[in-house]
């Protein structure tokens, strides 16, 4: 019998980590890692931060060096996207015409930016940010631009706004919702970030929509029109209105898909030979009781390890605690847990010092801790949530002088 073989489609965080974890967990068969991009797998978080700011180069974004793949006997195929899955024949067809047989297939396709549909969305200077190529284009664009318009007050948009502001550009953020990051953080955290951006001189417009973009004779964007008719100058536009899971070849092959490739607790799709991990997968959230799709390094990295364990014969349901981070100006926000559905927010520490945490409760249950420049609070929450408790009860956290370090010590866990 031929050696078992795993084909991983998508060479981003989740795909690269899956290939690496298969080897480090003892998988002895063939591993092929197939990517659409022409570069080695790299870290995306710095694209809107240090890379955009010019303090980190593309070479140190690589997750693993080229030599890694040779040393670990992982075949890396770059710039050759998978175009079709033949599940009956257990083969994947690549754009180049190459066909790869598999015993197990792991889909790690990621997500792609949602496109803007208003008139003028196709003008030069209207960009999205997902890949290193996108980031290079944006960085170049920032060199000559005076006015940056960010459409969408999500994490990527706000990070770009902060980086561009620090680089001296005039920045406007237009958000259709009533607050920033409405789907991801508590109202109090949205308000804190709003104040932070305004204090740095970013013009933030909430509950407003861009209705059209207009260009000059050369087809380069120059201004935006908002609902209500206001016009604002914009010679560079970043569209950050969310990402859509990449499901193309999976949906075409008849796998169950619903805003993400649907998987079970073992990250298995509706075909037992096919798994899906990372931004493209919608899985039963162990902490939410409903299917979720998360876009974070944590989720990609932990799901990669989980699927590798399954393929190495040690299946365990995916149960990692979600956490996330973002950096804007000197502000480092770390979120442990998932806060949606909270009905109460308690503040630990003094927000005016720039170091504090917001605790999001539903009833007596701590759902998430949002920490600003308070890594200990973040880490202790993660550790206690991961260990199943004990977590501070709301009346305890509300007590003046409450601190996570002392709480952890008292609980001596």
């Amino acid at each position, binding site marked *: 019998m031929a050696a078992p073989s795993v084909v991983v489609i998508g060479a981003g965080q989740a795909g690269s980590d899956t290939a690496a974890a298969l080897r480090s967990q003892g998988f002895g068969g063939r591993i092929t890692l197939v990517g659409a991009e022409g570069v080695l797998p790299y870290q995306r978080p710095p694209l809107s931060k240090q890379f955009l700011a010019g303090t980190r180069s593309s070479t140190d974004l690589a997750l693993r060096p080229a030599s890694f793949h040779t*040393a670990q006997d992982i075949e890396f195929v770059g710039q050759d996207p998978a175009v079709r899955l033949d599940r009956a024949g257990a083969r994947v067809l690549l754009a180049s015409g190459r066909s790869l047989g598999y015993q197990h297939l792991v889909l790690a396709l990621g997500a792609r930016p949602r496109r803007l549909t208003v008139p003028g969305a196709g003008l030069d200077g209207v960009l999205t940010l997902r890949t290193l190529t996108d980031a290079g284009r944006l960085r170049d664009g920032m060199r000559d631009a005076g006015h940056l318009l960010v459409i969408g007050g999500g994490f990527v948009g706000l990070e770009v706004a902060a980086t561009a502001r620090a680089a001296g550009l005039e920045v406007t953020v237009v958000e259709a919702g009533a607050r920033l990051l409405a789907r991801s953080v508590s109202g109090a955290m949205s308000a804190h970030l709003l104040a932070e951006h305004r204090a740095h001189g970013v013009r933030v417009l909430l509950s407003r929509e861009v209705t059209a973009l207009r260009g000059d004779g050369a087809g380069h964007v120059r201004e935006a029109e908002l609902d209500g008719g206001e016009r604002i100058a914009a010679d560079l536009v970043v569209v950050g209105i969310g990402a859509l899971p990449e499901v193309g070849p999976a949906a075409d092959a008849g796998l169950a898909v619903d805003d993400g490739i649907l998987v079970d607790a073992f990250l298995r799709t509706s075909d037992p030979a096919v798994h899906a991990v990372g931004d493209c997968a919608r899985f039963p959230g162990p902490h939410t009781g409903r299917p979720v799709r998360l876009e974070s*390094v944590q989720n990609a990295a932990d799901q990669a390890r989980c699927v590798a364990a399954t393929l190495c014969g040690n299946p365990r349901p995916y149960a990692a605690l979600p956490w996330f981070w973002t950096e804007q100006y000197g502000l480092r926000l770390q979120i442990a847990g998932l806060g949606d559905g909270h009905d109460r927010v308690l503040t630990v520490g003094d927000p005016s010092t720039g170091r504090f945490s917001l605790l999001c409760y539903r009833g007596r249950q701590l759902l998430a801790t949002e920490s600003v420049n308070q890594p*200990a609070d973040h880490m*202790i929450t*993660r*550790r206690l949530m*991961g260990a199943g408790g004990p977590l501070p009860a709301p009346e305890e956290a509300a007590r003046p002088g409450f601190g996570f370090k002392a709480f952890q010590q008292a609980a001596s866990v």
Partner: protein
Amino acid sequence: MAKITYRHPNGTETVVDVPVPNTVMRGAKINNIDGIEAQCGGSAQCGTCHVYIDEANALPLPEMHESEDDVLYGTAAPRRANSRLSCQLPVSEEIDGLVVHLPETQS
């Protein structure tokens, strides 16, 4: 280049030559040493690159910054006096021969 030894919880060890510049975390990643996850990519935020410095160590290591100290409050494996974040340990000839112990778990 510096020789770094990563000792696994089961007592086995992996000894590798890590080129300069790099960190002890990166040395583990590029050699696919299981037991260092480094989800935040080395920015002292995630605590999944936790190591214990060998008790007998006499090599010069950089002082701990406040953020590293804070992150170590919540590592998955217990913090000990010799706990460090391996992403905050630059590799240099001066630490040739360093021995670090990998914790039972990183998350």
